[in-house]
């Protein structure tokens, strides 16, 4: 036993908040033509402090990467307003710009800054001329309904990046009606054969910034899954030369062994209520789905079939689980209802479908499809049955959906390396997150951060 612990220590090195060099940088590869033009004007700062970053650049990059917007370059801007009063609506409207975001940064107290912004609907501003009279509680008052959002906040220098993503979220929601997912993280595994610890579990902001190593291991790490409160990751580790599932708190580094049965301990997926893990165990002979109650460790078996059953994924309402099974011959996706235990086949397209998950709006099933030997990310509209292949990249796997359902992150090949890539749920926007070195795999998009 002591020897086992020593071996475990030899193979794994636990790192709490160890900063790694940011190594992922998004390269947009397709699909900004159809995007809506918006302008993010550089925020005006008249103080003397050295600001950590340009908030407007982060916001512009976020909106570009959503695939839904294209931002006007600074040298094409007709003017550089800092507040609504200064905006010449007509000059922006003539460039087809729909919305302009303006803002200022002022010194508040040492190390703290007052950040203000206004999001302006250019066309509405042009119509109303900046003010409109409206009846509010039976009284006629002047309103500025062309200002879609305006806020002020006092933040420290180290909060600039986070607040920039917050502004992106607000602007995105005002302009699309859908919640933004810029204030989120991704977890992934890197493989570097030159390193002493070949496998690393990493978390970063959704855009690859603030990369932090959570675990380094000499043996494979797989399948990270976020808890719904985005504070913990469940994952598979081979540090004891067998598969085991651990849960690790990403802030404290506390690790907890969850399962270590004979055979496969794989594919952990946190339930939407955070109390359970769906997982794959082969302790009874071959891979079957189970649900583990995290509080009392009760294990419930969901499937019973001699074929492979694996890759469980919860429906957003937690009522059923999508999984991959070979029970029909080739691997296809099925669902199992958690009350009735009734099993239903979901996919029929192509030679194989694997790694399925349901979008947060319950409308689509996202998966890895094999057709004519090619593996691509695909989606099936559940109501109509319409099937669409979304990607053109090679050897795609491990799709993970953003919490707002707008985007899928997955792993694929670029050149000779495994990299992460993004594709919008409509398939029109595509981007790549190339790594500085090594292979990157098993991405998992976090829930919304609190």
């Amino acid at each position, binding site marked *: 036993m002591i020897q086992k612990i020593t071996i475990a220590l030899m193979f794994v090195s636990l790192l709490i908040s160890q900063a790694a060099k940011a190594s992922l940088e998004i390269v947009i590869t397709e699909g900004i033509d159809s995007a809506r033009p918006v302008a993010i004007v550089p925020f005006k700062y008249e103080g003397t402090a050295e600001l950590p970053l340009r908030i407007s650049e982060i916001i512009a990059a976020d909106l570009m990467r959503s695939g839904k917007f294209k931002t006007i370059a600074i040298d094409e801007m007709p003017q550089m307003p800092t507040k609504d009063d200064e905006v010449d609506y007509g000059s922006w409207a003539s460039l087809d710009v729909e919305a302009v975001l303006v803002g200022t940064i002022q010194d508040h107290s040492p190390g703290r800054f007052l950040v203000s912004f206004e999001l302006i609907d250019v066309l509405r501003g042009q119509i109303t001329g900046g003010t409109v009279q409206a009846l509010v509680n039976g009284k006629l008052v002047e309103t500025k309904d062309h200002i879609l959002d305006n806020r002020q906040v006092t933040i420290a220098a180290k909060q600039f990046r986070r607040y920039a993503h917050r502004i992106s979220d607000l602007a995105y929601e005002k302009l699309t009606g859908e919640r933004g997912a810029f204030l989120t993280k991704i977890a992934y595994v890197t493989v570097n054969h030159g390193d002493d610890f070949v496998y690393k579990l990493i978390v970063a902001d959704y855009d690859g910034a603030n990369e932090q190593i959570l675990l380094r291991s000499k043996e494979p790490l797989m*399948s990270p899954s976020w808890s719904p409160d985005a504070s913990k990751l469940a994952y598979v580790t081979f540090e004891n030369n067998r598969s085991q599932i651990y849960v690790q708190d990403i802030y404290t580094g506390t690790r907890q062994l969850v399962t270590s049965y004979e055979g496969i301990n794989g594919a952990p997926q946190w339930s939407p209520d955070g109390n359970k893990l769906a997982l794959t165990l082969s302790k009874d002979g071959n891979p079957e789905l189970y649900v583990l109650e995290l509080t009392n460790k009760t294990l419930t078996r969901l499937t019973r079939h001699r074929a492979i059953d694996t890759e469980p994924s919860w429906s957003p309402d937690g009522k059923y689980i999508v999984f991959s099974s070979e029970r029909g011959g080739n691997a296809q996706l099925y669902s199992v209802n958690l009350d009735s235990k009734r099993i239903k086949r979901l996919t029929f397209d192509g030679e194989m479908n*694997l790694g399925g998950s349901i979008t947060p709006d319950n409308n689509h099933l996202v998966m890895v499809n094999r057709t004519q030997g090619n593996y691509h990310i695909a989606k099936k509209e559940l109501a109509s049955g319409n099937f669409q292949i979304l990607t053109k990249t090679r050897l795609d796997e491990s799709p993970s959906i953003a919490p707002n359902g707008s985007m899928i992150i997955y792993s694929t090949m670029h050149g000779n390396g495994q990299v992460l890539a993004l594709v919008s749920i409509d398939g029109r926007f595509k981007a790549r997150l190339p790594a500085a070195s090594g292979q990157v795999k098993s991405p998992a998009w976090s829930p919304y951060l609190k």
Partner: protein
Amino acid sequence: MQFSKITKGLLIAIPALVLTACGSSSVVNDESKAATNSSSESVQASGMGQNASAVEVATVEKAPTVEEMQQAKFEALRQEQTVYFDFDDSKVDAKYLELLQAHADYLIKNPNQTVMVEGHCDERGTPEYNIALGERRAKAVATYLQNLGVMQSQISTVSYGEEKPLDLSRTQDGFAKNRRSVLVY
């Protein structure tokens, strides 16, 4: 960990080297070869030291028995520890029968010896599906060994899926090299 694996590998490899050295004619003053050769030759070697250059002794090659030939073949076969599979398949091809017989023979004769059978996949498909497929490959080999008489308690299995490819090229050749079960002593 790694070191003990290497040591075990050598324990298996050394007898094979000795065997290949057997059968060659030796001269008395060839001290190093005499020392590692079989016992009949070491008797001759004991006469060394007195006037070694005065005589030259030769030997006649002893024809190996059927049993010895089989052992030599098994030992040579055991140098190979990998069984390869077809795409999305876990059937052990008939061409590995002799290889697995050689390993089974060794395990049956050494009941305290254990073996770990690793199952691996190529990089196509999803990682967790490949873990399941890799386990089936490992178990196919384990079952094969059991059918040849090896005790279940001597065999354990682990699936690494597509996490430990041998060949990183992602070509058809590379994929074929990665779809494998490996016997690790």
